[in-house]
């Protein structure tokens, strides 16, 4: 009998534990040309803001060893176009939707969450409190992110919590001394899950021109290069919170995804690797099923946090 891959992520039922990293899957349509995206446990949307955003000037992207740096700057269609054009397509397709949101204040996040819930345009909310690419890196202290300050995480999470009954996930940054602190703050403020990790801050310089490679100077590092960091942070957070974790950071294969699950993640997201292999997330689902069969695992939930130490 095939293994049961279904998971419950803080009230969000997913038929398998695999979703996609926000910003690596647009709003689902493009990759539906390669595989049926409704087979995913959930589709996580690009971050949505109240107003459309053009994002940063190019160059926005550069390849790095086993990964890439990006500074897109949250270019997105805005909530209105999402509700009018993107969500109906995802709904019609039968996708479970994690609506990722980005705002400039707790009120903006709350408004976005309210609208997604009211229009039935998401089954869960993922609040991006950790985008590194929408701040001016030229200032002396560089960028500071909401998710770097546990008090702010509390305030933002409370505001969104009050605005929606949908399962609420808080996406945190790895650019902190102790990831457990913002995770605990989110949990105490009513979050239903923790999504980790967003990208690691990084930069590159062209020695010939002596100029930064990215127009934003600083960007976010993703891909297999960051995977060990991400697995460790999932483990760190799993030890202290009771709410589920969506683990991500350089997942390319089912074996990678299993590392996150064994470290304590309930669900996982395939991120940048979809750029290389558009159907990578589907192959991860197939690989998880195959693993469960090979190891006589009846329910994939048996593997959550099951690392043997």
């Amino acid at each position, binding site marked *: 009998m095939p293994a049961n891959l279904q998971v419950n992520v803080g009230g969000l039922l997913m038929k398998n534990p695999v979703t996609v990293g926000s*910003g*690596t*899957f*647009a709003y689902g349509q*493009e*990759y539906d*040309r*390669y595989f049926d995206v409704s087979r995913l446990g959930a589709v996580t949307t690009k971050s949505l803001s109240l*107003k*459309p*955003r*053009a*994002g940063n*000037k*190019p*160059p*926005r*992207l*550069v*390849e*790095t*060893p*086993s*990964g*890439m740096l*990006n500074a*897109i700057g949250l*270019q997105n*269609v*805005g909530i209105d*176009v999402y509700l009018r054009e993107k969500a109906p397509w995802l709904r019609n397709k039968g996708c479970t939707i994690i609506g990722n949101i980005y705002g400039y204040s707790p009120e903006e996040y709350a408004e976005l969450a309210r609208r997604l819930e009211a229009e039935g345009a998401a089954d869960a909310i993922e609040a991006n409190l950790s985008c590194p690419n929408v701040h001016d890196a030229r200032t002396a202290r560089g960028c500071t992110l909401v998710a770097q300050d546990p008090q702010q995480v509390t305030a933002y999470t409370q505001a969104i919590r009050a605005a929606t009954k949908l399962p609420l996930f808080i996406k945190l940054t790895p650019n902190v001394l102790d990831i457990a602190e913002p995770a605990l703050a989110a949990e105490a403020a009513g979050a239903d899950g923790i999504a980790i990790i967003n990208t690691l801050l990084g930069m590159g310089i062209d020695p010939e021109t002596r100029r930064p490679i990215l127009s934003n100077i600083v960007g976010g590092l993703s*891909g*297999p290069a960051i995977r060990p960091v991400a697995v460790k942070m999932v483990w760190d957070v799993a030890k202290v919170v009771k709410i589920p974790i969506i683990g991500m950071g350089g997942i*390319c294969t089912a074996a990678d995804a299993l590392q996150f699950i064994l470290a304590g993640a309930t669900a996982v997201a395939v991120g*940048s690797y*979809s*750029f*290389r*292999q*558009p*159907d990578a997330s589907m192959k991860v689902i197939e690989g998880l099923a195959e693993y469960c069969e090979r190891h006589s695992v009846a329910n994939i939930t048996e593997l959550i946090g099951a690392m043997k130490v």
Partner: protein
Amino acid sequence: MPYLSECEVTSHHELSPGHYRLVLHCPEIAQDAQAGQFCMLEVQQGYYPFLRRPMCFERIFKDSVSILYKIEGEGTRLLSALSPGQSINVQGPLGKPFPLEANHARHIMVAGGIGIAPFPALAEAIIAKLGVTPEIIIAARTDSMLLCEREFQQMGCKIHLATDDGSAGQKAFASEVLRALAPGPDTIAYCCGPMPMMKATHRVCEDLGVRCLASLEAEMACGDGVCLGCVVEAKVEIEAERMVRVCYDGPVFDSALINWDNY
């Protein structure tokens, strides 16, 4: 619809120092491919390089396509070691092709360096579909970097050569050669090459009232409109539409749409 296919290398040659022609057996992709479109090549397995490399089609045959490229970095250097008989994963065809517009008497292609890459396929399409033979300006830094002269001769195209150092053809920039050809409102120009060269070509076309299509290049992660990494700034007031994706909205754009001030 794009395919993901394992394709056999049928031939691979160095044309001049650092410049290669790769021929791939890919019946599905070749059947759908149009001039101006591109594919994403998986250079090798594993995570180095992490991303695919975007390459436009030089020529499109029944069961295969050819690709012209220049070694620019690690990815293309690794690619150049591929031998006939080996296979490579190809994603494509991607992007918007050159529109083939019948209402122009004169078609002039303007190529800078490796920017010659999409033009053999375009010339074949113009000849086959529009029954007109295009002219081509082949410009490069120096003699050894002028590519495809023989191919265009065989197609009967009128060829104008130019080099920056005067080692072959006129010592002039491609845009200056274009201006000297006195194109008019009955002309359509197609350009591909370094950004400053396309900017200069656009300016000449703007001056002379010539419609100009530019085929752009950019670093890209997905090739599919998803990552938003390859955008260029368009002359659009609407915030949400200002950044256009080279991979998905292009790579072929009306040159009047692009904000060339950035280059």
